[in-house]
């Protein structure tokens, strides 16, 4: 049997808007992936620890509070510090387009804004996994 893709859906920071994170979590699960949702108010440290512990192939983070430029790069930095280089890191939420090049430069593979169909995220994950 094919190994299931493992995704950690995470809410970094203090933002409480998790409708999107939960919809994504469910859509990924319905697509056959193994999904762990962290719940609200996770620090970058907690997210990275959870990803390692859960052996996640993907970290999918959602922020609607505007703290993305601060928190998303912290996660990729911590992954690098721990020598983890094969986890696909994605971002979503209310994120101005002007910020996307900066985030991509920091190792966020893709940023999905409001209105993105869940299928687009699913296809992106399947096409860009760093682990086979």
């Amino acid at each position, binding site marked *: 049997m094919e190994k299931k893709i493992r995704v950690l*859906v995470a809410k970094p*920071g*203090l*933002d*409480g*808007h*998790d*409708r999107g*994170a*939960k*919809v994504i*979590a*469910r*859509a990924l699960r319905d697509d056959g992936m193994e*999904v762990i*949702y*962290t*719940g*609200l*108010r996770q*620090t970058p440290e907690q997210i990275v620890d959870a990803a390692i512990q859960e052996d996640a192939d993907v970290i999918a983070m959602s922020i609607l*509070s*505007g*703290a993305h*430029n*601060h*928190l998303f790069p912290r996660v990729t930095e911590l992954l690098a510090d721990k020598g983890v280089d094969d986890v696909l890191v994605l971002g979503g939420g*209310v994120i*101005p*387009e*002007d910020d996307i090049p900066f985030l991509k430069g920091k190792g966020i593979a893709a940023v999905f*804004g*409001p*209105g993105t*169909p*869940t*299928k687009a995220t699913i296809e992106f994950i399947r096409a860009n996994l760093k682990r086979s």
Partner: protein
Amino acid sequence: MSDTGKRPDSLPGLGPWNACVDKSTARFPERRKDFVTGSGAPVARLYTPLDLGPAAFGGAGYEESIGYPGEYPYTRGVQNTMFRGRFWTMRQYAGFSTAEESNKRYKFLLEQGTTGLSVAFDLPTQIGYDSDHPLSQGEVGKVGVAIDSLADMEILFDGIPMDKVSTSMTINAPAAVLLAMYVAVAEKQGVGADKLNGTIQNDILKEYVARGTYIFPPEPSMRLITDIFAYCAKDVPNWNTISISGYHIREAGSTASQEVAFTLADGVAYVEAAIKAGLDVDDFGPRLSFFFNAHNDLFEEVAKYRAARRVWAKIMKERFGAKNPKSLMLRFHTQTGGSTLTAQQPDNNVVRVAIQALAAVLGGTQSLHTNSRDEALALPTEESVRIALRTQQIIANESGAAETVDPLAGSYYVESLTNRIEDEAWTYLKRIDGLGGAVRAIEQGYVQQEIQDSAYAYQMAIESGDRVVVGLNKFQVKEGPPKGLLRVDPAVGERQVAKLHALKERRDNAAVKASLVALDLAAKGDANLMPPIIEAVRHYATLGEICDVLRGVFGEYRPSAMF
């Protein structure tokens, strides 16, 4: 049910008309097989007097179920003359960056003709952390204004006459602290607490379910809330002590009926908690207020407000035995639906907001926030805020919707929707009672699961194309990135931290410490917490320091993560 009226149990023309329509739809099918409301409830082709429910029986049925504005069961509104007396309060939710910046925005809004303020706090403030807390990094001043102490609050309301302006504060877990600061600033302006008008959201149950800015577990949170009820009944009599909110429940994905049901179930829990704490229902009942959403389905939304008023009046009268008519009246604020706005072709959002705002007005709202077109992208610019406010002013002054009371009453469709939403709300309320009430139902994850199921169904309907969202899954255009978005200065965090540290140097730290010790003692006992919180605030104890004392006594809420 009185039977003085006659139910029109058949309409002679209806059968032949249906037969005729069947023939023509066989040749020219309708656009879809099933028509549904914005919430996915079935919609019939035609509504007739047969769909009026109890009012179909004629005069007496009308008077019992629909009645007159300002009279039980308040289906038609809470005042006799509604907007013929005065318009709803036009209240734009605003706040960002520092107290200085937000103070400027409030003065701009007042100049533009808003009639009440609505304060948005940043997330650290809403969760009881000072700006220098490690978890505050990157969040200071982002979704609202950063308030660490009374010093910030003094700047926030500088030059704003607190005896004239009513202020709504979206603050929940630390609501007692922000109310204390408001009272203390007013005192310095020479305005007594008895002259203050405004609202604190103070609705913790929907934070557990839908909004996420909780701090303490349910039991001590309910105590803080009932302490506020008791304190305000005595000292701040015109203050709305809570705004029981369906807004965020709907934003999290619920249907219109679920919005009504879960909000009123929370309301029941607060009333029960206050009665258990020894308060009389008519002492605090008149100061309860509500907060609902306005989504795009105009008729369903209007029916929702009408149904909510009717259900609440019955709950307060029949279940809690309230005698004061003011305890029976569901007064509410409305905000248009942020989650209905699209990042694609954002100017289209002006039109969505206009429809939603019209629904709120036709549904008899007491105050209204209209969202700005750019809210799916960033915090709103001044220009966007002005258009949003002008939308309300156009509805008020040009549309005619405010010239008579409850204009859609008697519409076969709207009355039928009102009855349906009421029935569905009662079904949910019974189920929640069966689970042991709203607090238990939330602890068991029941309410969250219901909302998540609706949210997922909605998303799937958009993705299948079954539900059209203009500009999103139909009528798309290629467009460049939006221009001129508001950006919060990233240095605001550092400035706020510097201010906080300077404050801690200059205040009387012995007095702060003593006041925090007194608060700790009060929290461990069962005295009302408002007086020691006000005392601490006056000495410039910070929000974080006060909440840390309470965290030490009460512990913190830790939800299970489900989806």
